Protein backbone atom coordinates (compact mmCIF):
# COMPACT_ATOMS: atom_id res chain seq x y z
CA UNK A 1 0.00 0.00 0.00
CA UNK A 2 2.78 2.41 0.90
CA UNK A 3 4.58 1.66 -2.35
CA UNK A 4 1.38 2.38 -4.17
CA UNK A 5 1.03 5.70 -2.42
CA UNK A 6 4.61 6.65 -3.19
CA UNK A 7 4.19 5.76 -6.84
CA UNK A 8 0.96 7.68 -7.04
CA UNK A 9 2.56 10.65 -5.37
CA UNK A 10 5.31 10.55 -8.00
CA UNK A 11 2.65 10.42 -10.69
CA UNK A 12 0.91 13.36 -9.14
CA UNK A 13 4.08 15.38 -8.90
CA UNK A 14 4.99 14.62 -12.47
CA UNK A 15 1.59 15.75 -13.71
CA UNK A 16 1.90 18.77 -11.46
CA UNK A 17 5.30 19.70 -12.82
CA UNK A 18 4.03 19.52 -16.38
CA UNK A 19 1.15 21.75 -15.37
CA UNK A 20 3.61 24.06 -13.71
CA UNK A 21 5.55 24.54 -16.93
CA UNK A 22 2.32 25.65 -18.55
CA UNK A 23 1.10 27.63 -15.59
CA UNK A 24 4.35 29.51 -15.11
CA UNK A 25 4.19 30.90 -18.62
CA UNK A 26 0.52 31.71 -18.36
CA UNK A 27 0.81 33.31 -14.96
CA UNK A 28 3.64 35.51 -16.23
CA UNK A 29 1.61 36.64 -19.17
CA UNK A 30 -1.69 36.93 -17.34
CA UNK A 31 -0.74 38.00 -13.87
CA UNK A 32 2.23 40.09 -14.70
CA UNK A 33 1.46 41.45 -18.14
CA UNK A 34 -2.27 41.35 -17.53
CA UNK A 35 -3.00 39.66 -20.82
CA UNK A 36 -5.41 36.76 -21.06
CA UNK A 37 -3.79 34.43 -23.52
CA UNK A 38 -6.01 31.49 -24.41
CA UNK A 39 -3.58 30.62 -27.19
CA UNK A 40 -1.15 29.44 -24.54
CA UNK A 41 -2.53 25.95 -25.07
CA UNK A 42 -1.95 26.30 -28.78
CA UNK A 43 1.69 27.15 -28.19
CA UNK A 44 1.94 23.98 -26.12
CA UNK A 45 0.47 22.05 -29.01
CA UNK A 46 2.76 23.70 -31.53
CA UNK A 47 5.72 22.87 -29.31
CA UNK A 48 4.71 19.21 -29.33
CA UNK A 49 4.20 19.15 -33.10
CA UNK A 50 7.52 20.83 -33.71
CA UNK A 51 9.18 18.31 -31.42
CA UNK A 52 7.64 15.53 -33.49
CA UNK A 53 8.70 17.11 -36.75
CA UNK A 54 12.21 17.87 -35.65
CA UNK A 55 12.70 14.50 -34.02
CA UNK A 56 11.70 12.94 -37.30
CA UNK A 57 14.12 15.15 -39.21
CA UNK A 58 17.11 15.04 -36.90
CA UNK A 59 16.45 11.60 -35.50
CA UNK A 60 17.19 12.86 -32.02
CA UNK A 61 14.74 14.10 -29.43
CA UNK A 62 17.48 15.79 -27.49
CA UNK A 63 18.40 17.84 -30.54
CA UNK A 64 14.78 18.55 -31.30
CA UNK A 65 14.08 19.82 -27.80
CA UNK A 66 15.99 23.11 -27.91
CA UNK A 67 15.04 23.66 -31.54
CA UNK A 68 11.33 23.22 -30.87
CA UNK A 69 11.39 25.36 -27.74
CA UNK A 70 13.22 28.10 -29.57
CA UNK A 71 10.87 27.92 -32.51
CA UNK A 72 7.84 28.18 -30.23
CA UNK A 73 9.44 31.12 -28.49
CA UNK A 74 9.90 32.84 -31.82
CA UNK A 75 6.33 32.06 -32.76
CA UNK A 76 5.27 33.66 -29.48
CA UNK A 77 7.26 36.77 -30.33
CA UNK A 78 5.68 36.95 -33.75
CA UNK A 79 2.20 36.57 -32.28
CA UNK A 80 2.86 39.27 -29.76
CA UNK A 81 4.16 41.72 -32.29
CA UNK A 82 1.55 40.95 -34.91
CA UNK A 83 -1.59 40.78 -32.81
CA UNK A 84 -1.51 41.02 -29.05
CA UNK A 85 0.63 44.11 -28.83
CA UNK A 86 -2.23 46.39 -29.79
CA UNK A 87 -4.46 44.87 -27.16
CA UNK A 88 -2.64 45.55 -23.91
CA UNK A 89 -4.65 48.66 -23.27
CA UNK A 90 -7.92 47.08 -24.19
CA UNK A 91 -10.34 45.04 -22.22
CA UNK A 92 -9.45 41.53 -21.16
CA UNK A 93 -12.31 40.23 -23.18
CA UNK A 94 -10.87 41.55 -26.42
CA UNK A 95 -7.83 39.50 -25.64
CA UNK A 96 -10.01 36.49 -24.91
CA UNK A 97 -11.73 36.86 -28.24
CA UNK A 98 -8.56 37.36 -30.20
CA UNK A 99 -6.75 34.44 -28.67
CA UNK A 100 -9.84 32.30 -29.10
CA UNK A 101 -9.56 33.05 -32.80
CA UNK A 102 -5.93 31.99 -32.64
CA UNK A 103 -6.89 28.67 -31.04
CA UNK A 104 -9.23 27.86 -33.90
CA UNK A 105 -6.56 28.80 -36.37
CA UNK A 106 -3.77 26.78 -34.83
CA UNK A 107 -5.90 23.71 -34.25
CA UNK A 108 -6.71 23.68 -37.91
CA UNK A 109 -3.30 24.65 -39.19
CA UNK A 110 -1.63 21.66 -37.60
CA UNK A 111 -4.27 19.41 -39.14
CA UNK A 112 -3.63 20.88 -42.54
CA UNK A 113 0.13 20.53 -42.20
CA UNK A 114 0.44 17.25 -40.30
CA UNK A 115 -2.88 15.58 -40.98
CA UNK A 116 -5.70 14.66 -38.63
CA UNK A 117 -4.09 11.65 -36.97
CA UNK A 118 -1.77 11.79 -34.00
CA UNK A 119 1.99 11.99 -34.47
CA UNK A 120 4.65 9.88 -32.87
CA UNK A 121 7.55 11.09 -30.76
CA UNK A 122 9.83 8.43 -29.31
CA UNK A 123 11.15 8.64 -25.79
CA UNK A 124 14.87 9.42 -25.97
CA UNK A 125 16.75 6.16 -25.82
CA UNK A 126 18.72 6.95 -22.68
CA UNK A 127 15.54 7.62 -20.76
CA UNK A 128 13.46 4.82 -22.22
CA UNK A 129 13.62 2.55 -19.22
CA UNK A 130 12.02 1.97 -15.90
CA UNK A 131 13.88 2.77 -12.78
CA UNK A 132 13.37 0.54 -9.78
CA UNK A 133 13.43 1.69 -6.21
CA UNK A 134 13.02 -0.17 -2.93
CA UNK A 135 13.98 -3.50 -4.42
CA UNK A 136 11.64 -3.15 -7.32
CA UNK A 137 8.65 -2.28 -5.21
CA UNK A 138 8.44 1.04 -6.95
CA UNK A 139 8.94 1.12 -10.66
CA UNK A 140 8.98 4.44 -12.38
CA UNK A 141 9.72 5.46 -15.97
CA UNK A 142 12.96 7.39 -16.20
CA UNK A 143 11.51 9.86 -18.67
CA UNK A 144 8.86 10.97 -16.21
CA UNK A 145 11.51 11.58 -13.61
CA UNK A 146 13.30 13.72 -16.18
CA UNK A 147 10.15 15.81 -16.57
CA UNK A 148 10.09 16.39 -12.85
CA UNK A 149 13.72 17.46 -12.89
CA UNK A 150 13.27 19.87 -15.79
CA UNK A 151 10.18 21.39 -14.15
CA UNK A 152 11.93 21.99 -10.88
CA UNK A 153 14.91 23.54 -12.64
CA UNK A 154 12.62 25.90 -14.52
CA UNK A 155 10.86 26.79 -11.29
CA UNK A 156 14.14 27.71 -9.63
CA UNK A 157 15.15 29.83 -12.60
CA UNK A 158 11.86 31.69 -12.62
CA UNK A 159 11.93 32.38 -8.90
CA UNK A 160 15.29 33.93 -9.30
CA UNK A 161 14.31 35.89 -12.38
CA UNK A 162 11.11 37.40 -11.03
CA UNK A 163 11.98 37.99 -7.43
CA UNK A 164 15.65 38.84 -7.59
CA UNK A 165 16.44 40.58 -10.84
CA UNK A 166 15.74 44.07 -12.06
CA UNK A 167 14.06 42.60 -15.10
CA UNK A 168 11.70 40.81 -12.77
CA UNK A 169 10.88 44.03 -10.93
CA UNK A 170 10.29 45.86 -14.16
CA UNK A 171 8.00 43.11 -15.38
CA UNK A 172 5.92 43.40 -12.25
CA UNK A 173 5.96 47.17 -12.37
CA UNK A 174 4.84 47.07 -15.98
CA UNK A 175 1.89 44.94 -15.01
CA UNK A 176 0.71 47.59 -12.60
CA UNK A 177 1.32 50.67 -14.68
CA UNK A 178 2.74 50.51 -18.19
CA UNK A 179 2.74 54.22 -18.81
CA UNK A 180 4.67 54.94 -15.68
CA UNK A 181 7.34 52.39 -16.47
CA UNK A 182 7.76 53.94 -19.88
CA UNK A 183 7.79 57.43 -18.43
CA UNK A 184 10.71 56.37 -16.29
CA UNK A 185 12.70 55.43 -19.35
CA UNK A 186 12.14 51.72 -19.76
CA UNK A 187 11.17 50.24 -23.12
CA UNK A 188 8.05 48.54 -21.90
CA UNK A 189 7.06 47.33 -25.33
CA UNK A 190 10.21 45.33 -25.76
CA UNK A 191 10.00 44.12 -22.19
CA UNK A 192 6.51 42.78 -22.75
CA UNK A 193 7.51 41.12 -25.97
CA UNK A 194 10.31 39.36 -24.16
CA UNK A 195 8.02 38.22 -21.37
CA UNK A 196 5.53 36.93 -23.87
CA UNK A 197 8.29 35.12 -25.67
CA UNK A 198 9.41 33.59 -22.41
CA UNK A 199 5.87 32.46 -21.67
CA UNK A 200 5.57 31.00 -25.15
CA UNK A 201 8.88 29.24 -24.76
CA UNK A 202 7.73 27.69 -21.49
CA UNK A 203 4.52 26.50 -23.10
CA UNK A 204 6.57 25.09 -25.94
CA UNK A 205 8.86 23.36 -23.45
CA UNK A 206 5.84 21.80 -21.78
CA UNK A 207 4.60 20.62 -25.15
CA UNK A 208 7.96 19.18 -26.10
CA UNK A 209 8.34 17.39 -22.79
CA UNK A 210 4.83 16.00 -23.06
CA UNK A 211 5.20 14.85 -26.66
CA UNK A 212 6.82 11.48 -25.95
CA UNK A 213 4.14 10.46 -23.46
CA UNK A 214 1.04 12.04 -24.93
CA UNK A 215 -0.67 11.88 -28.29
CA UNK A 216 0.51 14.77 -30.41
CA UNK A 217 -2.73 15.83 -32.03
CA UNK A 218 -4.85 18.80 -32.89
CA UNK A 219 -6.69 20.20 -29.89
CA UNK A 220 -4.29 18.67 -27.36
CA UNK A 221 -3.76 22.14 -25.89
CA UNK A 222 -7.39 22.86 -25.09
CA UNK A 223 -7.84 20.52 -22.17
CA UNK A 224 -4.56 21.39 -20.54
CA UNK A 225 -5.30 25.09 -20.99
CA UNK A 226 -8.32 24.83 -18.73
CA UNK A 227 -6.33 22.83 -16.20
CA UNK A 228 -3.63 25.47 -16.34
CA UNK A 229 -6.10 28.21 -15.61
CA UNK A 230 -7.36 26.19 -12.67
CA UNK A 231 -3.81 25.98 -11.41
CA UNK A 232 -3.00 29.66 -11.63
CA UNK A 233 -6.30 30.64 -10.10
CA UNK A 234 -5.82 28.33 -7.15
CA UNK A 235 -2.25 29.48 -6.80
CA UNK A 236 -3.07 33.16 -7.06
CA UNK A 237 -2.70 34.95 -10.36
CA UNK A 238 0.74 36.34 -10.97
CA UNK A 239 2.48 34.24 -8.37
CA UNK A 240 5.12 31.82 -9.59
CA UNK A 241 5.26 30.28 -6.15
CA UNK A 242 1.48 29.90 -6.19
CA UNK A 243 1.67 28.29 -9.60
CA UNK A 244 4.17 25.73 -8.40
CA UNK A 245 2.28 24.87 -5.23
CA UNK A 246 -1.08 24.73 -6.96
CA UNK A 247 0.24 22.72 -9.89
CA UNK A 248 1.64 20.05 -7.62
CA UNK A 249 -1.49 20.20 -5.47
CA UNK A 250 -3.71 19.72 -8.49
CA UNK A 251 -1.48 17.00 -9.85
CA UNK A 252 -1.50 15.07 -6.59
CA UNK A 253 -5.16 15.59 -5.80
CA UNK A 254 -6.21 14.60 -9.28
CA UNK A 255 -3.99 11.54 -9.28
CA UNK A 256 -4.94 10.45 -5.79
CA UNK A 257 -8.57 11.16 -6.48
CA UNK A 258 -8.56 9.03 -9.59
CA UNK A 259 -6.81 6.13 -7.94
CA UNK A 260 -8.01 6.21 -4.36
CA UNK A 261 -11.49 7.67 -4.53
CA UNK A 262 -13.13 4.70 -6.27
CA UNK A 263 -11.42 2.40 -3.76
CA UNK A 264 -12.66 4.39 -0.81
CA UNK A 265 -16.14 4.71 -2.22
CA UNK A 266 -16.31 1.00 -2.71
CA UNK A 267 -15.69 0.52 0.99
CA UNK A 268 -18.46 2.92 1.85
CA UNK A 269 -21.26 2.22 -0.60
CA UNK A 270 -22.20 -0.69 -2.77
CA UNK A 271 -20.16 -1.51 -5.82
CA UNK A 272 -22.79 -0.53 -8.34
CA UNK A 273 -23.24 2.91 -6.88
CA UNK A 274 -19.51 3.35 -6.36
CA UNK A 275 -18.72 2.68 -9.98
CA UNK A 276 -21.44 5.12 -10.96
CA UNK A 277 -20.41 8.06 -8.83
CA UNK A 278 -16.70 7.34 -8.39
CA UNK A 279 -15.52 8.43 -11.83
CA UNK A 280 -17.94 11.34 -11.92
CA UNK A 281 -16.68 12.70 -8.64
CA UNK A 282 -13.08 12.01 -9.63
CA UNK A 283 -13.44 14.14 -12.74
CA UNK A 284 -15.10 16.89 -10.74
CA UNK A 285 -12.49 16.76 -8.02
CA UNK A 286 -10.19 19.52 -9.20
CA UNK A 287 -13.15 21.78 -9.83
CA UNK A 288 -14.47 21.07 -6.38
CA UNK A 289 -11.01 21.81 -5.04
CA UNK A 290 -10.97 25.10 -6.91
CA UNK A 291 -14.40 26.05 -5.67
CA UNK A 292 -13.41 25.30 -2.09
CA UNK A 293 -10.14 27.21 -2.32
CA UNK A 294 -11.78 30.24 -3.86
CA UNK A 295 -14.60 30.16 -1.36
CA UNK A 296 -12.13 30.31 1.48
CA UNK A 297 -9.56 32.49 -0.25
CA UNK A 298 -11.11 34.44 -3.10
CA UNK A 299 -7.68 35.56 -4.31
CA UNK A 300 -6.13 32.13 -4.43
CA UNK A 301 -3.55 30.61 -2.12
CA UNK A 302 -0.78 33.10 -2.73
CA UNK A 303 -2.37 36.31 -3.86
CA UNK A 304 0.20 38.32 -5.74
CA UNK A 305 0.00 41.63 -4.02
CA UNK A 306 -1.25 43.88 -6.74
CA UNK A 307 -3.18 47.07 -6.22
Amino acid at each position, binding site marked *: MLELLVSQALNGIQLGVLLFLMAAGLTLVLGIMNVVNLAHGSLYMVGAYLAAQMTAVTGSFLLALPMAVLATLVLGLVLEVATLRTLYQRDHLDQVLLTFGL*ILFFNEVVRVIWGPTALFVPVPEALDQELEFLDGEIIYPAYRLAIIAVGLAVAAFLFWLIARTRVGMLIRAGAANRDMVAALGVDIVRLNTLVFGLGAGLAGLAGVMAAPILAVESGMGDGILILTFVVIVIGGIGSIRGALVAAVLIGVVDTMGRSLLPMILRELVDRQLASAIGPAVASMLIYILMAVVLTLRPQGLFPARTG
Partner: protein
Amino acid sequence: MRATVLAALAIAAVVPLVTAGLGGGEFYLGFATRIVIFAIAATSLNLILGYGGLVSLGHAAFFGLAAYGVGILAAHGVDTAAIQWPVALAACAVFAAVTGLVVLRTSGIYFIMITLAFAQMLYFLFVSLRQYGGDDGLTIATRSRLGPIDLGEPVVLYYLSVLCLVGSLWFCHRLVASRFGMVIRGARTNTRRMAALGFPVFRYQLVAFVLAGVMCGVAGILQANLTQFVSPSYMAWARSGELIVMVVLGGMGTLFGPVLGAAALLILEEVLADWTVHWMLYLGPIIVLIVLFAKRGLIGLFDRRSPPPAGGHHG
Protein backbone atom coordinates in the same frame (compact mmCIF):
# COMPACT_ATOMS: atom_id res chain seq x y z
CA MET B 1 -32.55 54.01 -32.47
CA ARG B 2 -36.27 53.65 -32.91
CA ALA B 3 -35.85 53.24 -36.67
CA THR B 4 -33.22 50.55 -36.19
CA VAL B 5 -35.47 48.67 -33.82
CA LEU B 6 -38.42 48.81 -36.18
CA ALA B 7 -36.27 47.70 -39.09
CA ALA B 8 -34.91 44.79 -37.07
CA LEU B 9 -38.39 43.77 -36.05
CA ALA B 10 -39.57 43.93 -39.62
CA ILE B 11 -36.68 41.76 -40.76
CA ALA B 12 -37.37 39.24 -38.01
CA ALA B 13 -41.03 39.17 -38.97
CA VAL B 14 -40.50 38.42 -42.63
CA VAL B 15 -37.80 35.79 -42.21
CA PRO B 16 -40.32 32.92 -42.47
CA LEU B 17 -41.75 34.39 -45.65
CA VAL B 18 -38.34 34.72 -47.22
CA THR B 19 -37.19 31.28 -46.20
CA ALA B 20 -40.43 29.80 -47.44
CA GLY B 21 -39.46 31.18 -50.82
CA LEU B 22 -36.09 29.45 -50.80
CA GLY B 23 -35.72 25.81 -51.60
CA GLY B 24 -35.50 23.92 -48.32
CA GLY B 25 -36.97 26.82 -46.42
CA GLU B 26 -37.54 24.73 -43.36
CA PHE B 27 -33.86 24.38 -42.81
CA TYR B 28 -33.27 28.10 -43.08
CA LEU B 29 -36.14 28.75 -40.75
CA GLY B 30 -34.66 26.29 -38.27
CA PHE B 31 -31.33 27.98 -38.65
CA ALA B 32 -32.89 31.38 -38.05
CA THR B 33 -34.58 30.00 -34.95
CA ARG B 34 -31.24 28.75 -33.73
CA ILE B 35 -29.73 32.19 -34.19
CA VAL B 36 -32.58 33.77 -32.28
CA ILE B 37 -32.18 31.26 -29.46
CA PHE B 38 -28.48 31.88 -29.16
CA ALA B 39 -29.15 35.61 -29.32
CA ILE B 40 -31.32 35.22 -26.22
CA ALA B 41 -28.57 33.30 -24.46
CA ALA B 42 -25.97 35.87 -25.46
CA THR B 43 -28.24 38.71 -24.36
CA SER B 44 -28.63 37.09 -20.97
CA LEU B 45 -24.88 36.78 -20.64
CA ASN B 46 -24.47 40.38 -21.71
CA LEU B 47 -26.62 41.42 -18.80
CA ILE B 48 -24.02 40.30 -16.28
CA LEU B 49 -20.93 40.42 -18.47
CA GLY B 50 -21.44 43.57 -20.48
CA TYR B 51 -23.21 45.67 -17.91
CA GLY B 52 -22.18 44.03 -14.68
CA GLY B 53 -18.60 43.17 -15.54
CA LEU B 54 -19.14 39.60 -14.36
CA VAL B 55 -17.46 37.42 -16.93
CA SER B 56 -19.05 34.02 -16.52
CA LEU B 57 -17.42 31.08 -18.25
CA GLY B 58 -20.19 28.82 -17.06
CA HIS B 59 -23.19 30.44 -18.59
CA ALA B 60 -24.03 27.53 -20.86
CA ALA B 61 -24.79 25.55 -17.72
CA PHE B 62 -28.12 27.33 -17.51
CA PHE B 63 -28.78 26.66 -21.16
CA GLY B 64 -28.19 22.96 -20.69
CA LEU B 65 -29.92 22.77 -17.34
CA ALA B 66 -33.15 24.22 -18.70
CA ALA B 67 -32.96 21.99 -21.76
CA TYR B 68 -32.54 18.99 -19.48
CA GLY B 69 -35.45 20.24 -17.42
CA VAL B 70 -37.63 19.93 -20.50
CA GLY B 71 -36.03 16.66 -21.57
CA ILE B 72 -36.20 14.88 -18.25
CA LEU B 73 -39.79 15.86 -17.60
CA ALA B 74 -40.69 14.80 -21.12
CA ALA B 75 -38.97 11.47 -20.53
CA HIS B 76 -41.30 11.00 -17.57
CA GLY B 77 -44.29 11.84 -19.69
CA VAL B 78 -44.77 15.40 -18.48
CA ASP B 79 -45.00 17.43 -21.63
CA THR B 80 -47.15 20.42 -20.85
CA ALA B 81 -45.26 23.66 -20.95
CA ALA B 82 -47.18 24.83 -17.91
CA ILE B 83 -45.21 22.41 -15.77
CA GLN B 84 -42.04 21.90 -17.82
CA TRP B 85 -41.06 25.49 -18.27
CA PRO B 86 -41.52 26.81 -14.76
CA VAL B 87 -39.67 23.79 -13.41
CA ALA B 88 -36.82 24.28 -15.88
CA LEU B 89 -36.55 27.97 -15.09
CA ALA B 90 -36.79 27.34 -11.37
CA ALA B 91 -33.92 24.89 -11.68
CA CYS B 92 -31.86 27.61 -13.34
CA ALA B 93 -32.80 30.12 -10.69
CA VAL B 94 -31.85 27.77 -7.89
CA PHE B 95 -28.59 26.79 -9.51
CA ALA B 96 -27.76 30.45 -10.12
CA ALA B 97 -28.65 31.45 -6.58
CA VAL B 98 -26.67 28.66 -4.95
CA THR B 99 -23.58 29.01 -7.09
CA GLY B 100 -23.92 32.79 -7.07
CA LEU B 101 -23.48 32.79 -3.31
CA VAL B 102 -20.04 31.37 -3.84
CA VAL B 103 -18.86 32.80 -7.15
CA LEU B 104 -19.78 36.40 -6.39
CA ARG B 105 -17.29 36.48 -3.58
CA THR B 106 -14.57 36.51 -6.21
CA SER B 107 -13.83 38.86 -9.05
CA GLY B 108 -11.85 39.13 -12.26
CA ILE B 109 -10.21 36.00 -13.56
CA TYR B 110 -11.11 34.22 -10.35
CA PHE B 111 -14.73 34.78 -11.15
CA ILE B 112 -14.25 33.43 -14.65
CA MET B 113 -12.69 30.28 -13.36
CA ILE B 114 -15.06 29.55 -10.54
CA THR B 115 -18.08 29.90 -12.77
CA LEU B 116 -16.35 27.46 -15.05
CA ALA B 117 -15.84 25.11 -12.14
CA PHE B 118 -19.51 24.95 -11.28
CA ALA B 119 -20.52 24.50 -14.88
CA GLN B 120 -18.03 21.67 -15.23
CA MET B 121 -19.43 19.95 -12.16
CA LEU B 122 -22.89 20.09 -13.67
CA TYR B 123 -21.49 18.86 -16.96
CA PHE B 124 -19.85 15.84 -15.42
CA LEU B 125 -22.98 15.15 -13.44
CA PHE B 126 -25.06 14.88 -16.58
CA VAL B 127 -22.39 12.86 -18.36
CA SER B 128 -22.73 10.33 -15.55
CA LEU B 129 -26.52 10.26 -15.47
CA ARG B 130 -27.09 7.02 -17.32
CA GLN B 131 -30.84 7.10 -16.87
CA TYR B 132 -30.96 10.20 -19.01
CA GLY B 133 -28.62 9.03 -21.69
CA GLY B 134 -25.38 10.22 -20.15
CA ASP B 135 -23.05 11.51 -22.78
CA ASP B 136 -25.21 10.19 -25.63
CA GLY B 137 -27.90 12.61 -24.69
CA LEU B 138 -31.61 12.34 -24.41
CA THR B 139 -34.06 12.46 -27.25
CA ILE B 140 -37.24 14.36 -26.51
CA ALA B 141 -40.14 12.49 -28.05
CA THR B 142 -42.60 15.38 -28.18
CA ARG B 143 -42.26 19.11 -28.02
CA SER B 144 -43.73 20.97 -25.09
CA ARG B 145 -47.52 21.30 -25.23
CA LEU B 146 -48.41 24.95 -24.99
CA GLY B 147 -52.19 25.07 -25.03
CA PRO B 148 -53.47 25.57 -28.54
CA ILE B 149 -50.08 26.66 -29.82
CA ASP B 150 -48.35 23.92 -31.77
CA LEU B 151 -44.60 24.14 -31.31
CA GLY B 152 -44.19 21.32 -33.79
CA GLU B 153 -44.88 23.90 -36.46
CA PRO B 154 -41.47 25.46 -37.23
CA VAL B 155 -42.94 28.88 -37.95
CA VAL B 156 -44.66 28.92 -34.58
CA LEU B 157 -41.49 27.98 -32.76
CA TYR B 158 -39.65 30.66 -34.67
CA TYR B 159 -42.09 33.39 -33.77
CA LEU B 160 -42.17 32.26 -30.17
CA SER B 161 -38.39 32.51 -30.06
CA VAL B 162 -38.44 35.95 -31.63
CA LEU B 163 -41.02 36.99 -29.07
CA CYS B 164 -38.79 35.75 -26.27
CA LEU B 165 -35.83 37.58 -27.75
CA VAL B 166 -37.74 40.83 -28.05
CA GLY B 167 -38.92 40.36 -24.50
CA SER B 168 -35.39 39.74 -23.27
CA LEU B 169 -34.06 42.77 -25.08
CA TRP B 170 -36.81 44.99 -23.82
CA PHE B 171 -36.26 43.71 -20.32
CA CYS B 172 -32.52 44.40 -20.58
CA HIS B 173 -33.11 47.81 -22.02
CA ARG B 174 -35.30 48.83 -19.16
CA LEU B 175 -33.20 47.11 -16.57
CA VAL B 176 -29.88 48.75 -17.32
CA ALA B 177 -31.36 52.23 -17.11
CA SER B 178 -33.27 51.50 -13.94
CA ARG B 179 -32.05 52.03 -10.41
CA PHE B 180 -31.13 48.40 -10.22
CA GLY B 181 -29.21 48.65 -13.47
CA MET B 182 -27.32 51.69 -12.25
CA VAL B 183 -26.15 49.73 -9.25
CA ILE B 184 -25.02 46.82 -11.39
CA ARG B 185 -23.15 49.08 -13.78
CA GLY B 186 -21.65 51.09 -10.97
CA ALA B 187 -20.41 47.96 -9.29
CA ARG B 188 -18.64 47.00 -12.48
CA THR B 189 -16.25 49.90 -12.29
CA ASN B 190 -15.94 50.64 -8.58
CA THR B 191 -17.21 48.13 -6.09
CA ARG B 192 -15.44 49.78 -3.21
CA ARG B 193 -17.15 53.08 -3.80
CA MET B 194 -20.53 51.37 -4.12
CA ALA B 195 -20.12 49.90 -0.67
CA ALA B 196 -19.08 53.24 0.77
CA LEU B 197 -22.18 54.81 -0.72
CA GLY B 198 -24.31 52.26 1.03
CA PHE B 199 -25.06 49.56 -1.54
CA PRO B 200 -24.80 45.95 -0.47
CA VAL B 201 -23.36 45.17 -3.88
CA PHE B 202 -23.34 41.43 -3.37
CA ARG B 203 -27.12 41.24 -3.15
CA TYR B 204 -27.61 43.18 -6.35
CA GLN B 205 -25.12 41.09 -8.21
CA LEU B 206 -26.74 37.94 -6.96
CA VAL B 207 -30.12 39.06 -8.26
CA ALA B 208 -28.58 39.98 -11.60
CA PHE B 209 -26.85 36.61 -11.73
CA VAL B 210 -30.11 34.80 -11.12
CA LEU B 211 -31.97 36.92 -13.67
CA ALA B 212 -29.35 36.20 -16.29
CA GLY B 213 -29.44 32.50 -15.47
CA VAL B 214 -33.18 32.35 -15.85
CA MET B 215 -33.09 34.29 -19.09
CA CYS B 216 -30.53 31.87 -20.45
CA GLY B 217 -32.85 29.11 -19.29
CA VAL B 218 -35.49 30.45 -21.64
CA ALA B 219 -33.05 29.94 -24.47
CA GLY B 220 -32.38 26.42 -23.24
CA ILE B 221 -36.08 25.58 -23.22
CA LEU B 222 -36.47 26.81 -26.76
CA GLN B 223 -33.40 24.90 -27.87
CA ALA B 224 -34.75 21.69 -26.36
CA ASN B 225 -37.91 22.22 -28.35
CA LEU B 226 -36.06 23.06 -31.51
CA THR B 227 -33.72 20.09 -31.49
CA GLN B 228 -35.93 17.70 -29.53
CA PHE B 229 -32.71 16.54 -28.06
CA VAL B 230 -30.50 17.48 -25.18
CA SER B 231 -27.01 16.36 -24.28
CA PRO B 232 -24.32 17.42 -21.85
CA SER B 233 -22.46 19.05 -24.72
CA TYR B 234 -25.00 21.87 -24.44
CA MET B 235 -23.28 22.89 -21.24
CA ALA B 236 -19.69 22.14 -22.11
CA TRP B 237 -17.26 24.92 -21.32
CA ALA B 238 -16.64 25.51 -25.00
CA ARG B 239 -20.31 26.52 -25.35
CA SER B 240 -19.91 29.02 -22.55
CA GLY B 241 -16.83 30.32 -24.30
CA GLU B 242 -18.80 30.66 -27.49
CA LEU B 243 -21.43 32.74 -25.72
CA ILE B 244 -18.69 35.07 -24.53
CA VAL B 245 -17.37 35.25 -28.06
CA MET B 246 -20.81 36.20 -29.31
CA VAL B 247 -21.18 38.96 -26.75
CA VAL B 248 -17.74 40.42 -27.26
CA LEU B 249 -17.81 40.00 -31.01
CA GLY B 250 -21.07 41.86 -31.28
CA GLY B 251 -20.24 44.52 -28.73
CA MET B 252 -20.61 43.97 -25.03
CA GLY B 253 -22.54 46.34 -22.88
CA THR B 254 -24.68 47.31 -25.83
CA LEU B 255 -28.24 46.20 -26.27
CA PHE B 256 -28.04 44.73 -29.74
CA GLY B 257 -24.39 43.74 -29.80
CA PRO B 258 -24.98 40.20 -28.52
CA VAL B 259 -27.73 39.62 -31.08
CA LEU B 260 -25.43 40.74 -33.82
CA GLY B 261 -22.61 38.64 -32.42
CA ALA B 262 -24.73 35.50 -32.25
CA ALA B 263 -25.96 35.95 -35.79
CA ALA B 264 -22.51 36.76 -37.13
CA LEU B 265 -20.77 33.83 -35.49
CA LEU B 266 -23.39 31.25 -36.42
CA ILE B 267 -23.72 32.48 -39.98
CA LEU B 268 -19.96 32.65 -40.45
CA GLU B 269 -19.59 29.10 -39.16
CA GLU B 270 -22.35 27.91 -41.40
CA VAL B 271 -21.08 29.60 -44.53
CA LEU B 272 -17.46 28.67 -44.01
CA ALA B 273 -18.22 25.08 -43.06
CA ASP B 274 -20.35 24.80 -46.17
CA TRP B 275 -17.44 25.91 -48.22
CA THR B 276 -14.49 24.01 -46.75
CA VAL B 277 -13.68 21.38 -44.16
CA HIS B 278 -10.93 23.59 -42.89
CA TRP B 279 -13.36 26.33 -41.99
CA MET B 280 -11.65 27.02 -38.70
CA LEU B 281 -8.58 28.03 -40.64
CA TYR B 282 -10.57 31.01 -41.84
CA LEU B 283 -12.90 31.66 -38.92
CA GLY B 284 -9.97 32.08 -36.54
CA PRO B 285 -8.24 34.87 -38.47
CA ILE B 286 -11.57 36.55 -39.22
CA ILE B 287 -12.21 36.79 -35.50
CA VAL B 288 -8.70 38.11 -34.96
CA LEU B 289 -9.22 40.79 -37.59
CA ILE B 290 -12.53 41.82 -36.11
CA VAL B 291 -10.93 42.26 -32.71
CA LEU B 292 -8.07 44.25 -34.15
CA PHE B 293 -10.08 46.53 -36.33
CA ALA B 294 -13.60 46.74 -34.94
CA LYS B 295 -12.69 48.05 -31.54
CA ARG B 296 -16.10 47.97 -29.98
CA GLY B 297 -17.30 44.83 -31.60
CA LEU B 298 -19.41 44.62 -34.71
CA ILE B 299 -21.95 47.03 -33.35
CA GLY B 300 -19.23 49.68 -33.40
CA LEU B 301 -19.18 49.43 -37.18
CA PHE B 302 -22.83 50.35 -37.35
CA ASP B 303 -23.22 52.83 -34.59
CA ARG B 304 -20.34 55.24 -34.34
CA ARG B 305 -22.02 57.51 -31.87
CA SER B 306 -22.41 55.25 -28.88
CA PRO B 307 -19.71 55.89 -26.30
CA PRO B 308 -16.74 53.58 -26.11
CA PRO B 309 -16.94 50.96 -23.42
CA ALA B 310 -15.09 52.16 -20.39
CA GLY B 311 -11.57 50.93 -19.75
CA GLY B 312 -10.37 47.54 -18.75
CA HIS B 313 -10.94 45.50 -15.68
CA HIS B 314 -10.69 46.96 -12.31
CA GLY B 315 -10.04 44.04 -10.07
